[in-house]
């Protein structure tokens, strides 16, 4: 049976980021091939820009074909295509490359001067075109950086340095898996992978992985086997079959979650869109504890309209059939950049303009979202929470803007109402002074809280021991839960901590009675709650 291409199985260690098993061919996504630090000749820089412009043009044309009947999308793409074909736009970039500038800076400088002239226009229509030019600028820059829109075949095990959430969302993961060098179990791609049931490991030296080799990814134990032998494959096929049985059994579990002492605990789910609700019966959960809206904004040509957002929010509220649906306003920035909105080149993005800080600086975008939420609030049990609140004034401003949006809608003759407005507690300053905030409810974002308390990035594999739930973190959680109990306001926890069965008892010890977890963790978390016998004496 063995032939010359047979190689012994090779096991490569990583760290589990999303459970599950995948078997398939390796697809190695090539890392950035453009490095501005390299000294390259003007001719090479010239060619790099020529190639990036051609690739952007080709991609825009194929997008325009896909847009089909969508007239607006077609018009926007046609404008960008005309721009990228216009020598008047590109000539200054080529001139500055001839003068010794590197391609990415030359291109940015050329198009930024155009963007500035649109930004300064008195006519709001012309001002709005600046975002189209930014979109084009970033598209060409992505091509220059080698981050081309690589498509991934179905069923492949993808190996890469890192992957932006927009690319993860654009990929068909059926039967496939993901292997990354960077990222961590709490990065946003990992959150998505767990939520969508895509096996994933991180911290893997991907340089020596060869395209096309057969591979077996074990997202439970955190390793990859290249060239697995037949026995290994058979063994894993069986395990996969067993796992899917267990998963089905868990999914069919319903009824309230009770501790061993009979205390009721609410278990809600975290979602990113309607797709995840398709196979889920609202009877099996106590509501949606966190709907992350940033994924509605990512990987698109233009920001979603009020109507588009309203339709999605309304359908979620309708799905929940009276159970609470907690929608978080746009939490962009940090590791979730959005074209045309977040700042590129933020030196320290997690301590930068993100969450509510960004929303309050882009009131046009924020107002649209608040309007869509105020309209959806009429349809059912909607709650809205604000991310990254640091001082009480931020929440007060959001409430005032929300009230304005409701008034405005009513003046226009539309139905609208102000839903309960809560805050995420993820900045230590807010957790410590939680009494000062006039929030209707609290939701603890443990992922960010942990990294801010420990001053250790959750994306740095070497600091995994620091970026974990310490006594300091639990003490802050206890403080917030106590305040919530005393003031009659609900406190939930929606970070990964809530979905870790090993931490459930510790959280219940702090008085937490509302958990929000990825749908995949519902079964294990309920089981851990059912084992809880009360605080250790």
């Amino acid at each position, binding site marked *: 049976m063995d032939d010359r291409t047979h190689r012994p199985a090779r096991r490569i260690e990583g760290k589990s980021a999303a459970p599950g098993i995948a078997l398939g061919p390796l697809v190695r996504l090539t890392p950035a091939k453009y490095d501005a630090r390299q000294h390259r000749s003007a001719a090479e820089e010239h060619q790099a820009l020529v190639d990036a412009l051609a690739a952007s043009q080709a991609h825009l044309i194929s997008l325009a074909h896909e847009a089909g009947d969508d007239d607006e999308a077609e*018009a*926007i793409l*046609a*404008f960008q295509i*005309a*721009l990228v*074909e*216009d*020598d*008047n*736009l590109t000539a200054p970039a080529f001139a500055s490359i001839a003068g010794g500038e590197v391609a990415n800076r030359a291109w940015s400088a050329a198009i930024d001067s*155009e963007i500035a*002239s649109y930004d300064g*226009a008195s*006519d709001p*229509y*012309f001002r709005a*075109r600046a975002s*189209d030019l930014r979109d084009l600028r970033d598209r060409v820059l992505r091509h220059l950086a080698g981050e081309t829109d690589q498509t991934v075949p179905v069923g492949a095990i993808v190996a890469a340095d890192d992957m932006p959430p927009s690319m993860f969302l654009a990929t068909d993961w059926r039967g496939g898996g993901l292997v990354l060098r960077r990222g961590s179990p709490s990065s946003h791609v990992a959150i998505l992978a767990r939520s969508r049931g895509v096996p994933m490991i991180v911290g893997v030296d991907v340089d020596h992985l060869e395209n096309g080799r057969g591979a077996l990814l074990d997202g439970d134990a955190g390793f990859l086997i290249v060239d697995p032998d037949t026995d290994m494959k058979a063994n894993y096929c069986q395990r996969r079959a067993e796992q899917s049985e267990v998963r089905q059994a868990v999914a069919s579990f319903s009824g309230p979650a009770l501790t061993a002492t009979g205390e009721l605990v609410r278990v809600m789910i975290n979602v990113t869109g309607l797709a995840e609700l398709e196979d889920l019966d609202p009877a099996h959960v106590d509501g949606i504890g966190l709907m992350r809206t940033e994924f509605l904004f990512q990987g698109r040509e233009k920001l979603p309209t009020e109507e588009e957002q309203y339709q999605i929010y309304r359908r979620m509220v309708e799905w929940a059939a009276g159970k609470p649906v907690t929608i978080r306003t746009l939490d962009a920035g940090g590791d979730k950049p959005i074209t045309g909105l977040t700042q590129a080149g933020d030196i320290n993005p997690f301590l930068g303009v993100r969450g509510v800080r960004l929303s309050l600086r882009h009131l046009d975008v924020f107002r649209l979202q608040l309007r869509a939420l105020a309209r959806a609030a009429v349809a059912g049990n909607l709650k809205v929470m604000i991310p990254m609140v640091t001082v009480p004034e931020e929440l007060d401003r959001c409430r005032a803007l929300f009230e304005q949006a409701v008034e405005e809608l009513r003046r226009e003759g539309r139905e609208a109402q102000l839903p309960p407005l809560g805050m995420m507690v993820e900045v230590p300053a807010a957790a410590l002074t939680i009494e000062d905030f006039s929030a209707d409810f609290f939701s603890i974002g443990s992922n960010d809280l942990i990294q801010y308390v420990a001053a250790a990035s959750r994306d740095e594999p070497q600091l995994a021991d620091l970026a974990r739930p310490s006594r300091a973190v639990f003490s802050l959680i206890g403080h917030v839960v106590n305040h919530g109990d005393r003031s009659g306001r609900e406190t939930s926890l929606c970070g990964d901590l809530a979905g870790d069965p090993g931490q459930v008892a510790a959280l219940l010890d702090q008085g937490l009675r509302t958990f929000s977890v990825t749908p995949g963790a519902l079964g294990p978390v309920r089981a851990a709650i059912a084992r809880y016998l009360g605080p250790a004496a």
Partner: protein
Amino acid sequence: MNKVRASVLMRHEVGLHARPSVKLTKLAKAFESRIDLGLSPDGPWVDAKSIVKVMATKAPKDSTIYFRAEGTDAKAALEALVTLVDGDFQDGR
């Protein structure tokens, strides 16, 4: 060489914005002649085949668009462009 001039009143409700500009430059590029566009009979003139330049005129509704063209197909070019603007950019192309 053939030199031609023409002018036409633009009634498009938001002026010479992205969609009309794309149509106008596309049509202009279909001709070999050099074609310029301006908002007064004396210019300043910009290249009617450049979306960047045409959009930069930021021509509002009810402006008169002036064209001048030079080349073998200059006359046909300006006739086509005037028809496009006069027909409010409803060209069905």
